[in-house]
Structures are given as structure tokens and as C-alpha cells.
């Protein structure tokens, strides 16, 4: 099933369809991405394993979370990731202006995520909920805030990329830096895609 997600759509433009030995962007960013995924993976595994002995507690407090806000957050991050892909494709076609607009849209969607999540955290603080409230909130707040910090870093990266596009730093044949930043942002999206159902729905 997973292979099919790529295999089925295994077509693209001439440059991008060229089989590559290394993933897009700098190799260093991919090592960083793997390290980040390992950490988030441990978080998710710990959450799931701890839930085994606390099913009622987890299910009860899961209902107190704002699932609608999480939906909008997921839609915002997926949209942001999509706009980043479009920005990379635009640079690949030497359309600098279009790439700049797509990157601004990606930035805007990321800011929407931050605004909703900040409001959610503020609501929890108002309710007196902290890491020590119970085991569920300990995991939820840790994972959500750790991810939130990654989004904050990602927004800085997107802002730098947008500025670089505006200044014409990337060309049709040289946009390695853009691909590195894009890959990091997709990782942030990927982690949220797992976090959303695991913590808010399951």
C-alpha cells in the first residue's frame, strides 16, 4: 500500500523524474530529518505503550481536546506543504515570481497553524492544565509543544527561502537550498499527520 503511493504516481517532469542517488536537498538535512523522526517516533511509541495501562484515562481526556482546531491545523499544514512543493516546481520552470507567491502562501498557512495552536495552548493554560496534570496531558503537551517548536523553526526557514527567491538566489539549475528547506517543512507536516489521529482521534 505504501509503495503504491509512490509507484502509482511515478511520473513527473524531465528533471524531477531523473532517478537520483540522493534525496532532494543537502544530505545533511536528511540526516537531521532522520534524527528528528527517530525522536518523534520514540515519543509516539512511548505514548502508545503508556496508553496500554491507561486506556480509560487517555480516552477520557482525549475528548477534552479541540478536534476541530486540530482538523484546521492539519489542513493548514498540508496546504502549506503543497504550496512549498509548488514553489519548488515553479523554480524548476524558472518562474521566480510564481515561486515567491507560493512560498508566501506556504508561510501564511504555517502562521495559521501557529495561531490556532497558540490559542489551544492558551486555553489549556487558562484551565490550569500542565505537564503534571496527568499522564495523558504530559504526553500531549510534550509532543504538541515539541512539534510547535519545529513549526516555529520551519517558519523561519520558509521566510528565509521566500527572501532568497525574491532576491533571485535560486535558478532552474541550482535550487539545492530551497529543496533542503522544503524537505524539512515536509517532515514537520509528516509528523503532524501522525500526531493528529494518534492523539486526537484514536
Amino acid at each position, binding site marked *: 500500500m505504501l509503495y503504491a503511493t509512490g509507484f502509482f504516481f511515478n511520473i513527473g517532469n524531465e528533471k524531477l523524474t531523473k532517478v537520483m*542517488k540522493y534525496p532532494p536537498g543537502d544530505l545533511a538535512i536528511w540526516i537531521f530529518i532522520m534524527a528528528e523522526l527517530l525522536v518523534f517516533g520514540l515519543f509516539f511509541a512511548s505514548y502508545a505503550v503508556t496508553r496500554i495501562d491507561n486506556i480509560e484515562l487517555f*480516552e477520557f481526556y482525549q475528548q477534552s481536546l479541540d478536534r476541530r482546531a486540530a482538523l484546521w491545523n492539519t489542513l493548514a499544514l498540508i496546504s502549506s506543504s503543497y504550496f512549498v512543493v509548488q514553489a519548488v516546481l515553479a523554480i524548476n520552470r524558472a518562474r521566480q515570481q510564481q515561486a515567491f507567491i507560493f512560498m508566501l502562501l506556504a508561510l501564511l498557512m504555517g502562521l495559521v497553524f501557529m495561531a490556532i495552536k497558540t490559542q489551544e495552548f492558551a486555553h489549556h493554560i487558562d484551565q490550569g492544565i500542565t505537564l503534571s496534570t496527568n499522564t495523558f496531558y504530559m504526553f500531549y503537551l510534550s509532543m504538541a509543544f515539541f512539534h510547535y517548536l519545529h513549526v516555529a523553526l520551519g517558519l523561519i526557514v520558509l521566510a528565509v527561502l521566500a527572501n532568497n527567491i525574491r532576491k533571485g538566489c535560486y535558478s532552474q539549475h541550482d535550487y539545492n537550498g530551497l529543496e533542503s528547506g522544503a524537505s524539512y517543512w515536509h517532515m514537520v507536516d509528516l509528523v503532524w499527520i501522525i500526531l493528529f489521529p494518534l492523539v486526537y482521534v*484514536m
Partner: protein
Amino acid sequence: MSTKNQTTLTTLSYAVLIGLTVATYQIGETQAHSLDISLLVFAIAIFKGGMISEQFMQLRFVKGIWRWPILIWLILLSIVIYTAFTP
């Protein structure tokens, strides 16, 4: 395949991701908690993760060892979650 088709495919993937996200939310809203539903929801998430890896991260164009780490991460995560959620 042309650049235009690449853009179309990305947009198609985006639409599928949005659709699956809304479906996940609707499943959560039914309040019908069961093991099967939980596993269905997580299977959807893993599929979405695969699409991010293959379509957005462009890993489908990579040949060799770098093609697999994220898909392996998703598979390992699935095994852990499945084991933890099944009695």
C-alpha cells in the same frame, strides 16, 4: 511526462490528503470508538505519510538506500501502534 503533469499530480495528491484528513475528522466525530476504527484511522494516517514521502518529498525519484528510511519509519511505527492498540 511534462511539468504540467507533475503539477497536476501534486494537486491530485493534495486533494487526496485533504479528503482523507476530513474523513479522519468525521470518523472521530462519530464517537464510535472501537479497535477496528482506531486501526483504520491509523492506516489512513500511514497512507497519508507515504504520500508526503513519495509525492511531496519527491523520494519516489530516489534509487537506493535513501529511498526507504521514511517508509521504513512509517512501517515500524505502524507495527508499534498496532501492537500497543491490540489486546
